[in-house]
């Protein structure tokens, strides 16, 4: 087996501030062509203490060196479960940088922003078609903000009917954002312990007239399809509740099945997962929300409207419609992360309807292939058919090694580790989501590495405990970092 990870020349690099030298300059501004002006002296500061002084070369070299310490999807396989680390197409980047799309001010009057409004309208229509919802708002900035928008919509719907329900049901496999969002919406969280997928009986036992909503993820974070979803939605509706779906795992379902057709009322999308926009080292994302017809009045505003028939309507007819009286209001200062929407729409246009379905099929095939190759080497806690991701555990690992050690050893082999210790219901979880953009060749190499590591855990556990040894830094002291937080550079500090 060829180990991808090796050690090359790694360059050290100081902090910006440690490079700074008074008098260096990294910018050029035009000469001032109007008389200079002054503010009253008592309003002005002397200088910005600590701000660096660097040349353009210093800055370019600094950040180029920092970049080499990172690992991205373009560096290699990134099977981070639940994050859908698929390839980020380059044409999307080019599209988002077209001056007429990148340079438009958000307060530009509608008749002078028809192009961007049309693009947003087409994107929200495409997302509605893919998900089976009546309407999609593009405003939320990320998945968690989409959840907030969606749960506020549900609460607004309840309030409008005079319903004062106080609780939200959340399976214990859910992302942490789900309970945090429910809390921010003013609801109490009732966790449901689930064994794999939710059963109708479990939901029935908890679903009473104080429960406003059930939050599900489908496929769930175990990579399993919630097969009882229709019956569950029906039950929740009969008892006066709503069903929210975390759309983090939509990559398994495009063109296969639509959450809106399952009875789900609200779902957020993660454009930075399913729709290929780059994760940017933590953002920006984009978290549009789809809803059923009944919930449209409560969506955040303003939204993009079209006086006509979808993409074929008149050239001059796209407009931003102010939120109506029932709306939950605004989520963002402007119209959301439009630059991300441009990339996502470029992806949808590049893939077409068959391409999106094929992407989901290949994503599911890849996850199942990894599962087939690693089952028996690593413990597989849930046996039903996986969709886009597969969850193993460290239970069968021999000797003193745990999930964390496997993850760190993978770094030495040249891979980004999977998501680990999530979902919480699986002890020592190793959550692998290959996505569709990885070839069989890559998957085989990765599986070989995983098998090799299982052998090392048995024969030479120290290799795992010491790992990683080929990275820029070794394991870091996170305890001291949290106990005595040093969150900024300080002169002489």
């Amino acid at each position, binding site marked *: 087996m060829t180990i991808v990870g090796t050690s090359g020349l790694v360059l050290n690099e100081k902090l910006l*501030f440690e490079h700074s030298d008074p008098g260096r*300059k*990294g*910018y050029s501004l035009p000469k001032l062509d109007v*008389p200079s002006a002054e503010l009253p002296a008592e*309003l002005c*500061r002397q200088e*910005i203490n600590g*701000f*660096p002084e660097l040349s*353009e070369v210093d*800055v370019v070299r600094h*950040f180029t060196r*920092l*970049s*080499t310490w990172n690992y*991205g*999807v373009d*560096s290699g396989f990134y099977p*981070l479960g639940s994050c859908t680390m698929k390839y980020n197409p380059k044409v999307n980047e080019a*599209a988002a940088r077209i*001056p007429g799309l990148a340079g438009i*001010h958000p307060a530009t*009057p509608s008749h*002078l922003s028809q192009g961007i409004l*049309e693009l947003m309208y087409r994107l929200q229509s495409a997302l509605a078609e893919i998900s089976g919802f009546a309407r999609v708002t593009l405003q939320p*900035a990320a*998945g*968690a*903000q989409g959840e*907030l928008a969606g749960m*506020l919509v549900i609460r607004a719907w309840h309030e409008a009917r005079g319903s004062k329900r106080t609780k939200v049901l959340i399976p214990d496999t859910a992302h*942490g954002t789900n309970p*945090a969002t429910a809390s921010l919406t003013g609801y109490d*969280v009732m966790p449901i312990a689930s064994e794999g997928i939710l059963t109708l009986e479990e939901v029935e036992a908890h679903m009473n007239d104080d429960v406003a909503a059930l939050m599900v993820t489908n496929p769930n974070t175990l990579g*399993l399809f919630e*097969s009882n979803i*229709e019956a569950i939605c029906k039950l929740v509706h009969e008892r006066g509740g709503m069903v929210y779906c975390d759309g983090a795992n939509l990559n398994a379902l495009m063109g296969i099945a639509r959450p809106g057709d399952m009875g789900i009322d609200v779902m957020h999308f993660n454009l930075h997962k399913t729709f290929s926009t*780059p*994760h*940017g*080292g*933590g*953002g*920006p994302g984009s978290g549009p929300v789809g809803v059923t017809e009944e919930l449209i009045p409560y969506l955040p505003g303003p939204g993009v409207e079209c006086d006509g028939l979808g993409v074929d309507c008149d050239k001059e007819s796209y407009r931003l419609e102010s939120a109506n009286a029932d709306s939950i*209001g*605004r989520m963002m200062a402007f119209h959301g992360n439009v630059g991300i929407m441009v990339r996502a729409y470029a992806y949808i246009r590049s*893939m077409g309807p*068959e391409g999106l379905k094929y992407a989901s099929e*290949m994503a599911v*095939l890849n996850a199942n*292939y990894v599962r*087939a190759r690693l089952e028996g080497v690593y413990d597989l806690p849930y046996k039903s*058919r996986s*969709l886009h991701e597969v969850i193993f555990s460290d239970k069968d690992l021999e000797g003193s090694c745990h999930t964390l050690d496997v993850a760190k050893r993978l770094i030495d082999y040249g891979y980004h580790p999977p998501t680990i210790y999530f979902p919480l219901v699986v002890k020592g979880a190793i959550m692998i989501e290959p996505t*569709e953009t990885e070839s069989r060749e890559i998957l085989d190499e990765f599986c070989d590495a995983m098998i090799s590591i299982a052998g090392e855990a048995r024969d030479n556990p120290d290799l795992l405990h010491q790992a990683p040894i080929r990275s820029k830094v070794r*394991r*870091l002291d996170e305890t001291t*970092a*949290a106990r005595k937080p040093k969150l900024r550079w300080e002169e002489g500090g």
Partner: protein
Amino acid sequence: MRYIPHTAGDVTQMLERVGVATLKDLFVEVPESVRLKRPLDLQELASETELLREFKALAAKNATPETHKSFLGGGAYHHFIPTVIDQLISRSEFYTAYTPYQPEISQGTLQAVFEFQSLICQLTGMAAANASMYDGASACAEAVLMAMRLTRRKRVLLSRAINPRYRAVVATYCRYLNLELVDVAVADDGRTDLDDLKAKLDDSTAAVVAGYPNYFGVIEDVAALAEQVHGAGARLVTAVAEPVALGLLKSPGELGADIVVGDAQSFGLPLAFGGPYVGFFAVRQKDVRGMPGRLVGETTDLEGQRGFVLTLATREQHIRREKATSNICSNQGLCALMATIFMSLLGKQGLREMAEQNLAKAAYARQQLSAVKGFSLVFNGPAFNEFVVRSEAPVAEVLTSLEKVGILAGIPLGEDYPELKDCFLVCVTEQNQREEIDALVAALQGGAA
């Protein structure tokens, strides 16, 4: 499909290994009743050439500062963007990475965020800053929630002179949290009315939010605000939508602000019809553990080398779930990197010079415009790069007639401020050449009124 590498042979062999006959069999757990039995109704795929042609055609229908003389601000600013920024953020090790959960292979992102946090602290005069928020408005909402948690009080006063969209987002976030939001009036000079504030402040007030500069471009007396607010045991939140001003103005921290939030779009981010931008969030030392959002801290590795990690995660949703300080999961990583590169390039001298240019250009424009018959300035408080103009002729007509000569003169204020229905907000930055300002003045003189 160029993004999917499987050959037909791969698919066959992989299915065999998995132990199923067809791709459809992979979805056996998806009940037949919910399967989509038709193709998605979407346009056929576009090739790369077709796609760019289509997107350029859409782009051509938009007015930008390249096609129009633009004086639009109001929370989104047309500033100089150094070429270096896009070159550096196009390093795909930066933009194709995830949140730095594995610090050994994420030191680039982590060190850059640590630098971002440090620069924001220096700029705002605060002790600690987080790794960034979605935008200035959501950062403002999170600040209000944080003040509420720290003080255990339920009343928040919002200056009417902060960006009305920030106020709207605060209202959305607080909608079901049993919080009382109260507006504070604007005084004649365009600053927050200190008498009205005094009347409304009480011992149930968690926070007071004011802009710096505010939505009208006026520079608030932060020290006076802080004195009153602290007297009532509340927290002062300053929202900075135009951080270029901080190149020149005293830092909010120095003047007594407790939480400083804002948007760093001005620092090298394209206008992009409103996003992605990047919110910043800075606090005093005592409040660090009550902050929302990601934080990066310095530490050492096994061999004693300096390194950086995500830290104080016990505040966050993935650990605390419903008891977290916020539901936020991501930050605006790449946008924070852009702002970091911008601040590195401009540095101590550059940010000041840029701020001085903004001040001078806006002062020139203000002076010229105030001399045009039919137009007047509304507020006389000290201003940075924006100001409010009152028009004798209906604002909509004035703005429309200017659009026809290629000028986006400003943002009408009537929708957000009924008492200012005859006014618009003008922004002048270092990007506006004198000729553009003169053209605006000439157009107003020449019968736009």
